[in-house]
């Protein structure tokens, strides 16, 4: 079963809009949630991360909102640009130092 779920599977927004990507998880012991960004032909790269002691984390135009009680979080991309078009993965730490990835959300920003 998928321990980290993402929605929507794909998202299209217009340039300048805020894109909202959602993530939920099963295990309430998860305490660290990185988001990775992957462009076609490249490996994923860490974009932003949040620890469960916080409910919000901002970095540039990227903001994570975290709801521990509901076991979900969302990534907001403010003022989306075509260059933000990529696949975004939410992840959580499993045992033995591995990361459990969601299935990703593919974002398309239309000019």
């Amino acid at each position: 079963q998928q321990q980290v779920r993402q929605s929507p599977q794909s998202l299209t927004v217009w340039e300048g809009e805020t894109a909202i990507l959602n993530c939920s998880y099963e295990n309430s012991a998860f305490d660290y949630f990185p988001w990775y960004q992957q462009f076609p032909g490249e490996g994923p790269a860490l974009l932003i991360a949040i620890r469960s002691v916080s409910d919000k984390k901002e970095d540039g135009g990227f903001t994570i909102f975290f709801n521990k009680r509901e076991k979900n979080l969302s990534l907001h991309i403010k003022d989306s640009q075509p260059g933000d078009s990529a696949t975004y993965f939410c992840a959580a730490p499993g045992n033995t130092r591995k990361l459990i990835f969601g299935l990703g959300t593919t974002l398309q920003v239309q000019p």
Partner: protein
Amino acid sequence: ETAVFQTPNYHVTQVGNEVSFNCKQTLGHDTMYWYKQDSKKLLKIMFSYNNKQLIVNETVPRRFSPQSSDKAHLNLRIKSVEPEDSAVYLCASSGTGYTQYFGPGTRLLVL
């Protein structure tokens, strides 16, 4: 700035052949990983090594075998490739935290 290097970028081969992929990291990390990413972008961990010791070995066919000569290198050998092995193979490394740094991937096409 690339710090996880993978070769080759792309490999085409016939069913039944043996292939080998190389990965090197220059970050000084102790832990390295191999992931398989399928056409739907699902990221699935295959192996994880910590200081040349295997610590994670997910359920993968026996024809896959990791090889580590030192903590900066982790290679992947596939003994007799099958069509379902066509995918992108991503190498990653991590230090003391959970953040993983990915290489650009090796794209394998099995004809």
